[in-house]
């Protein structure tokens, strides 16, 4: 187990290192003068151009030798500084992100966990009921092939714009002051619902298909046939198949974290939901590159933490990792 985690942690630290380096390097690697390139995207008055250009040059430390710039970048990062946001001037980037992260987590955590659990359950049931299989499976294929932003647009259109059942935009009603009142909590909930459903549904489809197919493979595995030849009831065989199918599903969960985060970004944009994804759009629109770089690092750290949680769950679910590792076989 120690070796397993040591390996995982090594990968994660390396990933973090690579991510920070990319975050630092990409503006500097871009062909030409990165700041000129940056600023040319926007129609600026010559005077403001000059001001922005010199302030960016200073902020990026472009005058220094590269290795120095790189070390400074790390030093600032380790002090928890990601620079100052332009979009929310003069707030530091970390503060801006922190406010948005709450919303994103409130969306992502329940949507990911619930769609994973529900998809696995329904997929497992579909694997043994023909009728359910014939209905759930096509439906799941449609869902998993759906672009997040499109399902979001569709839900927003039908349930908000046309039917007025849910609000179409925002994280809560702007007529309310954030307090711990029932009215405010209700407002939070109604604004949260559609983006949540979007993320839930797309994820659900994939997990249901995955579990269904895995169980069918497992039911055809040697150990399943052996159990049958011992006269074990179907119940026991299915129980084993389900438990074993959970393992590749967990690996799949770790693999799709990036896609899920991407889905959350575009979904938040559609619903103007004030999380990280929405912040990305604001940062792009207000040429706020410190904010973009900060968001990048935040996403990476979030995904790394999520990966680590999945690793821990994996060890809890797969007993072999525990034993094998004590013996040093893995």
């Amino acid at each position, binding site marked *: 187990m120690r070796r397993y985690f040591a390996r995982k942690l090594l*990968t994660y630290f*390396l*990933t973090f290192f*690579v991510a920070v380096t*990319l*975050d630092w390097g*990409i*503006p500097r690697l*871009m062909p030409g003068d*990165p700041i000129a*390139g*940056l600023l*040319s*995207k926007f129609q600026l008055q010559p005077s403001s151009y000059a001001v922005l250009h010199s302030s960016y040059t200073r902020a990026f430390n472009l005058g220094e030798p590269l290795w120095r710039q790189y070390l400074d970048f790390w030093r600032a990062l380790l002090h928890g500084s990601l620079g100052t946001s332009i979009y929310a001037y003069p707030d530091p980037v970390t503060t801006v992100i922190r406010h948005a992260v709450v919303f994103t987590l409130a969306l992502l955590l329940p949507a990911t966990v619930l769609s994973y659990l529900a998809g696995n359950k329904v997929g497992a049931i579909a694997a043994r009921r023909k009728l359910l299989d014939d209905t759930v499976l096509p439906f799941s*294929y449609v869902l*998993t*092939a*759906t*672009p997040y*932003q*499109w399902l979001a*647009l*569709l839900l*927003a*259109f039908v349930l908000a*714009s046309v039917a007025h059942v849910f609000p179409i935009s925002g994280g809560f009603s702007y007529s309310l002051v954030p307090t711990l009142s029932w009215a405010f909590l209700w407002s939070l909930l109604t604004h949260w619902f559609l983006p949540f459903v979007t993320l839930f549904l797309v994820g659900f489809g994939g997990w249901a298909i*995955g579990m269904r*197919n*895995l169980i*069918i493979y497992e039911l*055809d*595995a*040697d150990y399943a046939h052996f159990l049958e030849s011992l006269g074990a009831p179907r119940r026991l065989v299915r129980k084993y198949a389900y438990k*074993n199918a959970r393992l*590749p599903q967990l*690996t*799949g969960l770790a*693999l799709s*974290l*990036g896609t899920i*985060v*991407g889905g959350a*970004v*575009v979904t938040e*944009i*559609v619903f103007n939901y004030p999380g990280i994804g929405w912040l*990305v*759009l604001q940062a*792009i629109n207000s040429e706020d*590159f410190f904010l973009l*770089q900060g*968001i*990048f690092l935040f*996403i*990476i750290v979030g*995904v*790394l933490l999520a*990966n680590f949680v999945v690793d821990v769950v994996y060890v809890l679910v*797969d007993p072999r*990792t525990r034993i094998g590792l004590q013996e040093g076989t893995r």
Partner: protein
Amino acid sequence: MSKDTTTTKDDTAAPTEEGNTAPRHELVYFALRNRKLVIGLSIVGLLGLAAIVAPFSARSNPDAFVGPPMQPPSSSYLLGTTYFGQDVYSQLVNGLRQSFLVGIMGGGIAFVVATAVGFTAGYRGGAVDEVLNMLTNVLLVIPTLALLIIVGGYLKGTSIVFEAMFVGATAWPWAARAIRAQTLSLVSRDFVGLARLSGVRSWRIVVGEVAPNMSSYLFLTFILLFGNAILISASYDFLGFGPPGGVSLGSMMNLAFAWNALQLHIWWWFVPPGVAIMGIVGGLYVTNVGLDEVFNPKLRSL
């Protein structure tokens, strides 16, 4: 067939030995009989056809302002017009073409990288494997979209080729991992060991022995990468990072959203591109499962 702890969902598509020794005409026989494969291929085929004949069936410039704005679908405007009075049908078929292009190029690049990395790591083993495996795992964790946010911000006006290259450069790690696992299991089989002993050069073993034995698996992997590339590029375009001026399925949704199609109830502007993406990607996924059943006799149900 028991799974070890490193298997991914995708490994389950692994072909069995029998699958590869089945004669070709038999595969065709099962292919024509497989409902999933037939349905999936039909959808993808029809949409592909629509993309190919786009120049003949649609207006040459999909961005042209051809009619009154915000017209619902009618006989003169099959899918209505946009907020600006552009023809949605023309935009759709042109967007389809863009999507197929990005899918094939991006999926293709990712496939080449994935097979190169997967084969090398799985075949060479040792330190080479360690390094490649670590690289794969690192890139696997970095979400592509997040990377795009910092890259896209600095690049003005990308092209469809750039988009395909970006997708290709970032979408390969899961496939490389799956191919590596497959290669490892093949390499441990006797015939590869024999080839190794007899001193055949390693790339020839890979090309001559390993690749043919997992050709169906590689094909399935490519199909999934193809679908992934289309989905990813739709997200990029929706964020506004797509090629400027060009029409893609993602940018249609982006513009529809940006110009309040939701509030103005111009549903015909954003519904068709989503349906088209769903059709291609869903069709590809279903094709994938169908092919898997054809290649893998164990899955063939009556």
